[in-house]
């Protein structure tokens, strides 16, 4: 495997593990993240895994770029020996359409489907979380069927309510906090994705498998009473 390093300024280094998003690169990213998590080099301040890179932030007073690079190379030499980390599966209940999913109709029409068919396809997918970014706990989820792909909105909404489920291109995701955004909104989950009082502070983490499960509006409201519960 080809690993390359390059600086991200004077306090970070980027480890590049591939140049396209695929299963193998994703596995490598998971392994690098697990390795950094367990070894915690003293000069490391934090690391941020993404689709094909892991960026490592460090204190240049403890190690300069060349030293960090050499130590990471040494560390990553052990990469192949590790057994891939077992991934968790997290079920996300979603109440589709209606006031929670104002763009469900659009996604259906765009793909010449009925809203029912969009829901069936969305809940049937095998999803995994590629990366957390954009907002706290916002998962970039891959694995959605192209049958329900839909373009971003021409002009982003100023305010998208927290916990809304959306589609943009081939990706699906959930907005953990209220933000502006351009995704097509198809439903809402009663589960809280961002939990600042917990460690880790997010429901989902990179590498997790995700299942979307349809729930009724009544179930939604019952569940919302306890948004941290795995089951209502």
């Amino acid at each position, binding site marked *: 495997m080809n690993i390359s390093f*390059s600086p991200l*300024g*004077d306090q970070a280094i*980027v480890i590049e593990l591939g140049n*396209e998003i695929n299963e193998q690169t994703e596995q490598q990213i998971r392994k690098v993240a697990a390795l950094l998590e367990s070894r915690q080099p003293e000069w490391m301040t934090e690391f941020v895994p*993404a689709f094909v*890179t892991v960026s490592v*932030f460090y204190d240049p007073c403890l190690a300069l770029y060349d030293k960090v690079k050499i130590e990471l190379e040494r560390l990553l030499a052990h990469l192949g020996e590790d057994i891939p980390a077992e991934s968790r599966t997290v079920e996300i209940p979603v109440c589709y359409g209606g006031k929670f999913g104002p763009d469900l109709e659009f996604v259906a029409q765009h793909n010449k489907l009925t809203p029912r068919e969009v829901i069936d396809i969305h809940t049937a997918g095998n999803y995994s979380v590629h990366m957390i970014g954009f*907002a706290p706990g916002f998962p970039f989820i891959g694995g959605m069927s192209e049958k329900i792909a839909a373009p971003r909105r021409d002009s982003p909404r100023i305010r998208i309510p927290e916990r809304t489920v959306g589609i943009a291109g081939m990706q699906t995701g959930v907005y953990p*906090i209220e933000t502006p955004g351009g995704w097509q909104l198809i439903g809402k989950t009663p589960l809280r994705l961002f939990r600042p009082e917990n460690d880790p502070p997010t429901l989902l983490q990179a590498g997790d498998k995700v299942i979307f499960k349809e729930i009724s509006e009544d179930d939604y409201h019952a569940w919302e009473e306890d948004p941290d519960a795995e089951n209502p």
Partner: protein
Amino acid sequence: MLKILKSGLQTTVQDLGRTGFQKYGVIASGAMDPYAHRLANLLVGNNEQAAALEITLAGPVIEFTEDVLIALCGGDLSPQLDGEAVGTWRTLAVAKGSTLTFGEPRIGARCYLAIAGGIDVPAVMGSRSTYLRARIGGFQGRALEKGDELPIGDATQQQKALQQHGENDFDWQLAPARYFEEPVIRMMPGRQFNLFDEDSKKRIFSEAYTVSANSDRMGYRLEGSGLALKTPAELISEAVAFGSVQVPADGNPIVLLADRQTTGGYPKIGQVASVDLPLISQLKQGQQLRFKEISVADAQQRWIEQEQSIHRIKAAIQLKWEEWT
């Protein structure tokens, strides 16, 4: 307690930011001018990570409901104590009942008010910095408003002893950081520097860029001659850092600052040297800046020199304190 009588443009509680949570999409936040923030804390005998107030352009009106030690570092926003102009980059003893106001911003855009004991708000994910969008940290997760009352942390014995001194007893001032009308910002070529066309690669290091109105704690949007890639490229999102200079499709660079998102998908033409970040953070809308190339090794050397200098300043402050108590 600090009582906010008027909010000012944007006053927030900040420390040096939230570390270790960017992998969960939680932004770093923290002081826009970490150098001024750290020195303000050192001048009042705090740990440099203590929470202070970041005051932006039009300052607030603050009443102190107890005797306190304070320091104001960063931009000169014409601070006054009970109507009298007051010095910055120095330790000040303030009597209970005094009121701090601000006037015209003269140099810089942000001033840090540190107070002995620190602003005592609860830490969220290890930091007291305000994360406005997620409404967490700082004071109730938001900018300060009229009527807010901020608790002050416990002072040490030495801090308490110094609080008894008169306002003008500390006849000693640090050399203020130098902020410039048209700064030259040292920048390393970014991760995607070579994706830009030859012309853009030259212009970024030769032309002046203007800070646009659309600039805030998240980032400064710059206006200048547009920058372009050799061929359009769809990039895969990756981590960004304090000072990453991204170029979206419109060709105008954006310098990412304290409240930047954790990841981004625009090509990065550069990365500002960490020592020069305060120079950008202190710019106001309409001001100009230029970029000058620096290597990673040089930028790291400058950083280490600055850390050594802060270390010496800290030792000098401690000597002064011993003299005063």
